[in-house]
């Protein structure tokens, strides 16, 4: 609507008393529909089905997901606003964590958070006159495979990320090599793996090796979810990754700022993803510094 000239300044807002109210409890039964007849509830159950199929198709599993959980926790430990700021996590902590819906453990799940997050989007022309350095949108893409998990045959990839990513990169006219950091919608550790895989960072099953040696962590060569993400900072749906992407581009992240503070590359280009349902919707946005 900005491009059509309909609007000049768009506000996008999220707010939820998710932890302290009974809203989530109501959602569990409301949205499970007839799946509840067979004891299938919620997002953890849905992504557990996807993760198990991925284990079968390309040999992933907790040894890969552990690195995502522990890696992102390290970013949260640098972020005073993160729910898990003062809770370090070791690989042993992950291994000992309880199974919720197997193969997913508690640290494979995103947080439930009270709070809100909002962003403003406008034209670059107007942005130049405003307070903050703008996070410029280089490219975007979407793809919504839509089908519920019970009838999905792409839960182990390629998900909507493949097509959405291709469109975003084509629009931005860049390649993966140009990306300095990623903010990946991380409702579950598996979501991060399959998203990065479908974007082309590694081949099916290559995630475990790719993550080795702290790739996504402070000091790593491809930082992922630098606020701690939905896994360790706060769950605000797609607002968690996009807000952090913008703030990092703007250089306002303090102790967790990409660049010298965290022994990483100062970010020119950040890849942000959004996801909906059980891998049913995907969007990819590439942000850059002016």
């Amino acid at each position: 609507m900005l491009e059509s000239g309909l609007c000049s300044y768009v506000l996008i807002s999220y707010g939820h008393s998710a932890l302290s109210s009974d809203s989530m409890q109501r959602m569990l039964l409301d949205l499970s529909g007839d799946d509840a007849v067979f004891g299938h509830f919620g997002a953890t159950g849905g992504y557990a089905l996807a993760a198990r199929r991925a284990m079968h198709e390309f040999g992933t599993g907790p040894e890969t997901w552990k690195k995502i959980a522990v890696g992102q926790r390290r970013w949260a430990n640098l972020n005073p606003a993160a729910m898990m700021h003062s809770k370090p996590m070791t690989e042993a902590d992950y291994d000992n964590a309880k199974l919720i819906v197997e193969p997913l453990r508690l640290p494979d799940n995103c947080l439930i958070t009270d709070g809100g997050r909002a962003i403003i989007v406008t034209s670059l022309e107007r942005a130049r006159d405003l307070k903050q350095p703008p996070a410029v949108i280089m490219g975007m893409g979407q793809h919504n495979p839509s089908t519920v998990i019970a009838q999905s045959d792409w839960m182990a990839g390629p998900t909507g990320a493949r097509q959405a990513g291709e469109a975003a990169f084509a629009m931005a006219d860049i390649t993966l090599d140009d990306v300095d950091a990623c903010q990946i919608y991380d409702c579950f550790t598996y979501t991060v793996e399959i998203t990065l895989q479908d974007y082309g960072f590694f081949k099916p099953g290559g995630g475990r090796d790719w993550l080795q040696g702290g790739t996504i962590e402070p000091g790593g060569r491809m930082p992922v979810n630098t606020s701690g993400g939905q896994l360790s900072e706060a769950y605000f749906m797609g607002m968690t990754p996009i807000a952090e992407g913008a703030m990092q581009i703007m250089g306002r992240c303090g102790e967790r700022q990409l660049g010298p503070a965290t022994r990483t590359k100062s970010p020119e280009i950040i890849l942000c993803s959004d996801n909906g349902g059980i891998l049913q919707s995907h969007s990819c946005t590439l942000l850059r510094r002016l």
Partner: protein
Amino acid sequence: MSYDKPLPKLNSDNRPFWEGCRQHELRFQRCSDCGHVRWPPSDLCPQCHSTEINWLISKGIGKVYTFAVYHTAFHPGFAADLPYTVAVVALDEGPHFMSNIVGCRPDEVKCDMPVKVVWEDVDERITLPKFRALS
């Protein structure tokens, strides 16, 4: 003893399916025009948009496409069943159907495991199709 788990909601789309279950028949809609066998049921073929259907009776045989083992009770009615297995079964006729695997331990369930339908009569209205390993 009262049944304390959720029951399916019957409506014009799915009533023939649940009536079939009462007779221990697993029924699916096959599109008369393109042959696609669909689940969940509806008036429209998602492949070709035809509204012509006939209902086939499935042999009830398929493979576990994927599964998840619940270690947490999200609903009190399932607390006594923990740990229990929810699976997506790929039936030989094509549809993917979500149900439970029964008759074996959760750690015995594997992807691609052959299974066959078994029937759980809940009450005079509802019979649930579940699946067990085909030996």
